[in-house]
């Protein structure tokens, strides 16, 4: 098993779909993210952003190439190991927050560890309550997800992604469904956790304002990385 120091290393990843008519969604993507980096992944629709995010998130497998997560080569891992790696190493923030509507904010935040371990212990509950307080939802933690506003739901989703202190958080257009104020609030929260906890964050976004707030912008086009530049703080 290969060992790398970086949080994320994408090494020559190719992804093709179809049997007869083969479509190449990713065409040899190389990408390295270091600890504590906040990077934006941009590109037009169909450029391969979601495909790349799914492969990095271990929800899909590359046709060729390798993905290292926190030093672990994920290429040869079986289904069970992929699930365990996903639970321990990654945090997800989706565009539509994707909270479980039947569950309260607190239960949603506890889900990743609860689902993996099978039980809730005092430590997990304390961590979930603490992070909900940190995202400003101390008084809403027993509200059902459906009884929260869009911005509040996305803050719960961020808390869920961060509760286990993952090495890498993958955010797929986390502000795409929010108004301007909520959008700024949510991104500010992500940047705060990135700075305070040193969590590496990869944000897929179309919003140049979000990209401008990141340390780095990676642009994807036709399945290739066409630009990878650092952002100078304003």
């Amino acid at each position: 098993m290969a060992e790398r120091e970086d949080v994320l290393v994408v090494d020559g990843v190719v992804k093709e779909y179809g049997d007869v008519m083969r479509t190449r969604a990713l065409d040899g993507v190389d990408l390295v993210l270091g600890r504590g980096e906040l990077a934006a992944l941009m590109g037009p629709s169909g450029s391969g952003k979601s495909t790349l995010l799914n492969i990095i998130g271990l929800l899909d497998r590359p046709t060729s190439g390798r993905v290292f997560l926190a030093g672990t080569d994920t290429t040869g891992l079986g289904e069970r190991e992929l699930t365990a790696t996903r639970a321990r190493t990654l945090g997800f923030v989706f565009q539509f927050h994707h909270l479980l509507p039947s569950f309260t904010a607190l239960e949603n935040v506890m889900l990743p560890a609860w689902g993996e371990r099978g039980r809730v212990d005092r430590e997990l509950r304390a961590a979930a309550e603490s992070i909900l307080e940190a995202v400003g939802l101390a008084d809403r933690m027993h509200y059902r997800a459906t009884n929260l506003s869009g911005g509040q739901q996305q803050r719960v989703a961020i808390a869920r992604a961060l509760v286990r202190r993952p090495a890498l958080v993958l955010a797929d257009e986390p502000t795409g469904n929010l108004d301007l104020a909520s959008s700024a609030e949510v991104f500010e929260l992500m940047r705060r956790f990135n700075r305070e906890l040193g969590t590496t964050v990869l944000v897929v976004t179309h919003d140049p304002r979000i990209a401008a707030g990141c340390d780095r912008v990676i642009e994807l086009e036709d399945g290739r990385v066409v630009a990878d530049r650092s952002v100078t703080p304003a």
Partner: protein
Amino acid sequence: MPFEWFVALRYMRDARGQTALIFAAVAVGVTVIVFLSALIGGLQASLIDKTLGSQPHITLLVPREVPRPLAAATPTTAIARATQESPQRLRSIDQWPEVVVAAGRIDGVIAAAPSISGAGFAVRGEARSPIVVRGVDPERFLQIIDIRERLVAGRFVVGGGDVVIGAQLASELGAAVGDKLRVSSSEGVDDVVTIRGIFSLGARAVDATWLLTSLRHAQALYALPGGVTTIELKVAEVFAAERIARQVAGATGLRADSWMTVNAELLAGLSAQSSSKWLIQFFVVVAVALGIASVLIVSVVQKSREIGILRAVGTPRRRIVLVFLIQGGVLGLIGSIAGAGLGALLAKLFEGLVRDPGGAPRFPVQLTPALFLSSIALAIGVGLVAAMIPARRASRLDPATAIRNG
């Protein structure tokens, strides 16, 4: 609370309509199973009770007499002969006291009673009826058939010219307790006896013909001093009678007829009834299983995005499988408890509604703890098996596709 239980119970609480549908399917299925089993079980038990209430479980008799031709064919010679069946004489069982002791020691036999059974006529005035004279040892005979419980008049007193007769026979002779009868045995011996009791076993053939007297009196009527013609046995497990009969026949060299052989048609009828019951229950179980599976599959489809999220954030497949198995099992348990209660209630109502003129239930039902427990276990099993398909389907959802497409 374990994750699987929490999620399963939350899903069940939230999808109240689907939960109610599965609950209703299980409850109705178990109601049908419990009601049908109680009714058919009760009818069968009642039929067997009535049948065995008027006959021993096993009857030992001397082997039938068969003709033994003196001339026999050889490999080189052929003969023409006509052989007549031997008339069956009333014969005593050799060394019967030892046979009674030996039969009583066989595993499964709980009582053995010697008796004489012979044909005759009972005459009272102008009335004359064919009868079966049963000479019995009262104490031992009561262990085989407790006639005291079936007395409709008088007492069970036999011996010294006192007899007990069937209610139908008493009616045909116009006789009551205290009346005298003339009894003529097939051996040509006549005697006058006094009726001390009248019984009704509920079997017309018995009630219309039986005359119970003492063993000694019957020995005199049939010229069998010190002899008996039959030894009657009672066994602990009625459906083991045929097996024990073969064992007794092998050990004693006598003919052993079990109630199962004597009532072969009844048993065939009961068996057909049981087969029908099993068939109906099978189809009920299949219908319930399909109901549970289809409702849970709809639930999986509706919740596929949530399942995808759970998988994406690191929930292993086996926990997703358990979430749906728990739903199937819990609804199987709750539905079956309700169904068992409802089935029992319906069975009791039915038993109370339909009664014969004497007030006894025409359809006696048999409700046993075993029936309830087996129905509940069956429903839980069906719930788990039916939930297996949706559970596997849920666990195999691709998280990325499920999240994208919902």
